[in-house]
């Protein structure tokens, strides 16, 4: 690629064939943001719903105020979700020049 082509600023993005690995990266990025945002909203919602009202009237579960107990449960559930996504949804890929997205299960069947 010569200098002129490299620094060309009048081109169409359609001229570039996108590496399928990058499409996969983008998808995983969106999933990650989605999970973290969901975790945020659910935790805050649960805490502020169950934690409403006078502190003297809090219900206790296993020695903890119910809102805090529920938030701990949410954290545990999301820990499993995060581990599950990492193991089952995220895909392996070769990071070097010849790399492709690996389809682990399909190759086993084939």
């Amino acid at each position, binding site marked *: 690629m010569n200098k002129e082509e490299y620094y060309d600023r009048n081109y169409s993005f359609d001229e*570039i064939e996108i590496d399928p690995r990058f499409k996969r990266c983008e998808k995983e990025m969106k999933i990650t943001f989605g999970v*973290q*945002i969901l975790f945020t909203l659910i935790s805050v919602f649960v805490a502020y719903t169950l934690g409403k009202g006078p502190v003297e009237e809090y219900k206790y579960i296993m020695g903890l105020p119910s809102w*805090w107990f529920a938030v701990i449960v949410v954290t545990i559930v999301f820990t499993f979700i995060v581990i599950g996504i990492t193991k089952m949804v995220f895909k392996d890929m070769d990071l070097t020049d010849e790399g492709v997205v690996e389809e682990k299960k399909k190759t086993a069947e084939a």
Partner: protein
Amino acid sequence: MGFEVSAGARTAIIVTFALYSVILLGIGVYTKKMMDKTALDKYVEEFYTGGRGMGSLVIALMIAAGLCSAGTFLGGPGLGYSIGMAWVLVALAQNFMNFCVLGQIGKKVGIVARRINAQSYIDLFVYRYNHNKIIGAFGVIAIVVFLGSYVVAQFVGGARLFETMTGLPYWLGLTIFAAVVLLYAAFGGIKGVSTAIVFQGIVMTAAVFALFIGALAYIGPLEPAIKSIAAIKPALINPWTWTPKYQLSMWVVFGLVFIGLPHGAMGALTYKDTKAMHKAIILGVIFVVLWTFMLIWMGSMVRAVYPNLPVPDHAIPALAMTVLPPWLAGITLAGVAGAIQSTVGAMIIVISSTFVKDAYQAYINPKADNLTLKKVTTASTVIICIAIFLLALKPPHALEWIIAFAIGGLASAFFWPLLLGLYWMKANEYGAAAGMVGGIVTYILAAGKFLPITMGMHAIVVSLLVSGILTIGVSLVTPKTPKGIIMTWFGKAYPKEIPH
């Protein structure tokens, strides 16, 4: 101080801490020997990114222990003590930091960094944004000022704690802290730092478990203990102490902007392959969930033991002295030291790599040969350590404020330009420069209360908003990024070299 440290306990603490420091010195000497054997033409690469060959445990702890600092061990529990459960709830936002960093940018950075041979966080910006001088210079200054002040604050926190728990002078604690880090960071590079981080992560985990179990046994049944805290001040147990709006904005600070933090994103530059990366997510999530939950929550529970500590940051040390036998309390100090040193080590590598790659090589001496580069790498790392040591000798006040300011400032500058640069072809250097400068300026104006623009939320929300709008808006009305760069960052085929 609010709690007692007996002479016998002091001796036990000093012995444990000395042992911990000696092991780290050993790691320093060992990795220095390894680095001495490294071929000259590979030295800078090995020094800053370990030749991109790092395994899962190292990456997991580099992100987890790199991001969990004095904030998680001292300041965080301190806020749990003074503010209460509204803050403990916020702390949970950081639970999945490894998942966020590696899931959001890990693979894309992994591929692109191999294409462009990126050695530093700022390298990514410089290459993506067409070697723009403003972005390069701004990145270097932001890293040095914000990470630099953060590192100073970390050392100050560590040395103060050392002083409190051992009765030995502040300068001695600081000297030990700095000398240990200097040895393994300046001579072992990222290998020294990461080997140390594995050891530190294990010590941190041991300390957290000892403390948690000891505290639960000491405090006894939880319900009466929590009710006794509620009797002091009901707000300590109530999430409504903070409005839901403010609470959510704090979750943005501590949960959404990790990729804007250079010392956390280092993991994405150094891991070996995606299998190691996936394992690093799982391991890291387990470590951070345990540390955060146990430590920050225990910080708030200390109220049941000491209702009136004059220094809230002493919550965890006070708890350790009370509920643990002296030698285990010593491990707690070592754990805190580990949290501080692991963060500082990662940051020093970031500052040094930014200086050598993006200031020295980019502006001062672009044609430096390998031997010169090796010397400059070592010398600049040593100078950075010494400068930080000298600044920490006369410590600036308000540790937690500086930390919050540094995190917010960096994240405001880097979050959108990095994320959009990786995933949006239209992002260009004009947009990124506008977004970086606009983000940081807005943050300083908002956080420093120069302008009343926070709308009852943490200042980062408005600065991220401004930075994002500027990056996108300016990119849309200015020319596209040069084709060769977009091919490298998005294309299947790409130019192997930048033509001159």
